[in-house]
């Protein structure tokens, strides 16, 4: 895969991530309106991966909000993964290593965040 094609592919990944995130957040916000939840209502629902599925099935707005926020935060990671695969296909070991280190830093953030 040449550079221009890789960059366009990654651009599409980012664009798709932004649109998917936007749609999920918009659904969640609409749900907040329907269920009369205000932005400053307390306490806010905690982030819990184990509850995400059941919240979505129950059409709980918090489920869509958290899924949308996850999509927002993980979109750049998907971009890095796509870059890693593209550089690997092109045999560019140095850039593969760079992408792997970036991914490792992101994973470490998640681990330290969850561990704290």
């Amino acid at each position, binding site marked *: 895969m040449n550079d221009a094609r890789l*960059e366009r592919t990654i651009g599409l990944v980012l*664009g798709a991530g932004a649109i998917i995130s936007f749609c999920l957040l918009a659904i969640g916000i609409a749900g907040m309106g329907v269920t009369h939840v205000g932005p400053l209502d307390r306490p806010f629902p905690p982030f819990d991966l184990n509850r995400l599925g059941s919240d979505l099935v129950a059409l709980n707005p918090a489920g869509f*909000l958290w899924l949308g926020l996850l999509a927002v935060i993980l979109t750049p990671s998907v971009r890095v993964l796509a870059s890693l695969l593209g550089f690997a296909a092109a045999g560019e070991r140095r850039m593969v290593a760079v992408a792997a280190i970036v991914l490792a830093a992101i994973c470490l953030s998640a681990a330290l965040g969850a561990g704290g």
Partner: protein
Amino acid sequence: MSGGVAAGAFGALLGLGGGVLIVPLLTLGFGLPFREAVGASLVCVIVTSSAAASVYLQRDVANLRLGMTLEMFTAIAALAGGLIAFMLPDRVLAIMFAALLLYVALTMVRARDAREARGVSEGRAAAGGALAPEDGPVVGDDGDRETATAEPAIDGGLAASLSGPGYRIHNLGRGVLGSLLAGIVSALFGVGGGIVKVPVMNLIMGVPMRVATATSNLMIGVTASAGGLIYLFRGGIDPYVAAPTAVGVFVGASLASRLADRVDLPVLRLLFIAVLVVTAAQMALRGIG
């Protein structure tokens, strides 16, 4: 959400990241704790970065290799910054943020002076500003330091491999230091860090302004993501606040692209500098207690 629309529109028109506007809006305007405001701001920064970087990459403006190389350091620094943010008291963060606001105001004044000295039209910078959250007000659109013909490439083969058409990267080591600083600033204050990255790439590394802006946008997503994950898992993101603000910022930044030609940007910029100074004072007062 309307606050987010305003922040997104102002930020895009003025070439600033949302964080500089969103954090004061949420803390001073809505009384949110500083860390929750930073968490929401990081989400907004990622949304606008993804949308802008998508366009820049498809137009072949951003330098993917340079961006990924530098974001190794911004991501690691953002990780550290996110951890530090949860150790510092809100008051200390507020005072540090006030200093950041003053720095942004000062750089905008300097950029304005530089533009006036060159007699540059203001409209051009704005036209490309929408959905480009970190255009970096430090140097204007015409502040390019063009190719690095005057200095040898001291970083050897790596720098050469990161260079692009018409320019050659140099001072990679200083670029790495700038990236580390940008990562910490991003995670501590919920900003993209373009205020550091763009001038470092443009003035120190010899990257043309347009490419530096686009590459900074690309890097911001990963930087804010590394910090954002710590906020997410440590309860620093309120979905009821972050989601409407992020959608508002996205809509506001999109609208700004249609308004850019109709707005008197010099007046808006002066007004914004005044708002930044007043906000910095309020933030400092909040910090002092």
